[in-house]
């Protein structure tokens, strides 16, 4: 009798849990599991969206890795972005976070000003930077020229397009600033006082008190930065389109990567292969490469318990 009520109680509680989770259970199946399996399926198919899919073995895979001229340049670009853009963002974000904790007058105003660019919608911010950095008449080159400094071609020059994107990314540092600021304010005051009593220099205090305390947050910023760099899409695509002058919502075709493939990233390849070349099979191969990379770093984030993304209690 009592075991029966226990069982029915347990069943009720399982039903209740399922009811609460139901929106997501549907969302997970229809908008995650199904398309993921489907992507794997299409990666082995020749499919253009019109004719029925045909088995293509590893054909799409070998095409992407050895014949598709955009794949390796986009991986090289991503590596560059990880090494330079992510590093600049983390260092600058940490610097601004430190600065804001030292500012004693007008802290609120400074914090708001530092944070605002992060809010600028990516397309709007990118358009603004293409204008600011336009080689001929843009304000930045105007000022650089007046100072007698070199005036690079920025978004119109393959060697300067990624530094220009980095400037744009560093401008929107607000998210990192807030995270670093919170971490810095959490460092126990006594540790600084004790270190100060010992006559340490401010660099030593940073190196031996601040850094060990905030290192999990620095690691979090680096790993999420890497994930963002791999997914980098809107800014490089819009910058390339606008700087090249080839725009038009549905009319003209724009081959992403302008100038000279220097702004290509993996997600742009999915768009190029799938929606411009109608080679859905090859697009799915690139999608799976992107998926694998994203999941490796996400797994890393989740495994670092107690500091990064908490999955425990």
């Amino acid at each position: 009798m009592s075991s029966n009520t226990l069982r029915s109680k347990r069943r009720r509680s399982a039903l209740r849990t399922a009811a609460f989770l139901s929106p997501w259970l549907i969302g997970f199946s229809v908008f995650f599991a199904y398309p993921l399996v489907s992507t794997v399926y299409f990666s082995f198919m020749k499919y253009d969206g019109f004719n029925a899919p045909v088995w293509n073995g590893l054909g799409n895979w070998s095409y992407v890795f050895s014949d598709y001229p955009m794949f390796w340049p986009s991986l090289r670009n991503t590596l560059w972005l990880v090494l330079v853009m992510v590093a600049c963002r983390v260092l600058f974000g940490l610097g601004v976070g430190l600065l804001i904790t030292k500012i004693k007058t007008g802290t609120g105003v400074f914090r708001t000003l530092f944070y605002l660019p992060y809010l600028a919608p990516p397309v709007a911010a990118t358009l603004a930077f293409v204008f600011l950095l336009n080689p001929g008449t843009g304000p930045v080159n105007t000022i650089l020229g007046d100072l007698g400094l070199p005036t690079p071609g920025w978004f119109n020059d393959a060697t300067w397009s990624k530094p220009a994107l980095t400037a744009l990314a560093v401008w929107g540092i607000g998210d990192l600033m807030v995270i670093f600021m919170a971490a810095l304010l959490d460092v126990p005051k006594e540790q600084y006082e004790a270190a100060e009593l010992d006559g340490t220099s401010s660099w030593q205090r940073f190196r031996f008190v601040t850094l060990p305390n905030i290192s999990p947050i620095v690691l979090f910023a680096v790993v999420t930065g890497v994930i963002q760099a791999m997914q980098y899409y809107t800014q490089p695509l819009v910058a390339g389109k606008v700087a090249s002058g080839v725009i038009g919502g549905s009319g003209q075709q724009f081959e992403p990567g302008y100038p000279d493939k220097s702004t290509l990233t993996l997600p742009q390849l999915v768009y190029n292969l799938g929606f411009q070349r109608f080679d859905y099979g090859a697009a799915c191969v690139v999608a799976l490469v992107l998926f694998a990379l994203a999941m490796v770093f996400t797994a890393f984030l989740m495994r670092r318990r107690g500091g990064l993304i908490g999955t425990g209690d």
Partner: protein
Amino acid sequence: MTQQLLDAPGRPVRPTEGRTPAARTARRKAALHWIAVHALGVATALFFVLPFVFLFLTSVMSDQQALTRDLTPNSWEWGNYAKVFDTPGFLTWWKNTLLYAGLGTLLSVLSSIPVAYALAKFRFRGRQLSLMLVISMMMLPPQVIIIPMYLFWAKQFDLSGTLWPLIIPMAFGDAFTIFLLRQFLLTIPDEYLDAARVDGCGEFRTLLRVVLPMAKPGIAAVALFQFFYAWNDYFGPQIYASENPAAWTLSYGLESFKGAHHTDWNLTMAATVLVMAPVILVFFFAQKAFVEGVTLTGVKG
């Protein structure tokens, strides 16, 4: 590390109270430090603010002057903003963006609340796994599943050329919203829930009457994020709406604006200002909720 520092011999640098020369030096040092820090603050602020300033100044230049190297306008052409509004489509983009961002946010918050609650407060087998799957969904670049998703919406439902393929999924829980809300709900002590249950509330009523009122700041933060996400989204409208200009959003249309006015940097910059302004206005009214949300994203206490 710290222990090592503590053991190291050193001289105390604490200024003694009073007007000793040592105290004066310390005061002067503090003043210099204040000046240095705030000068650096102003310089950094310039880096963040100047792009906005140049953007705005160009937006009120005349057509001819916007093509020159001039930094400040000779005459202030406020009419540029009216011209932007007169551009065919601009008001439609506004309407579409509000629909996508408004309805999308409403649906995703409503559908995510029960899921986040269950993940934060129920004990059940597979909870850990569910949470890991939510995080994986959150980290999934949208491009990974776009081919099957596009075929799904275009071929099964004939919805390409509309924003519905972006809005409908929001009714089935958004991973980012679920994760953030769950982090927030963890901070509500179980005692409140137990008290409600003792009073005879079912789980649903507990959620409605006890948890939701306490979770308002968290809900405000996720709603803001979701709204901004939709407002800023470029990839979604590019895939589903590009073929039909009547379904374009601001973020997508703005880019074509430069195409239609290819030499008119002044009008393009005025349109850019008009796309940025609402987001920044919302931020000023909801600053606290926003900053709370940013801290929630990564760092758990």
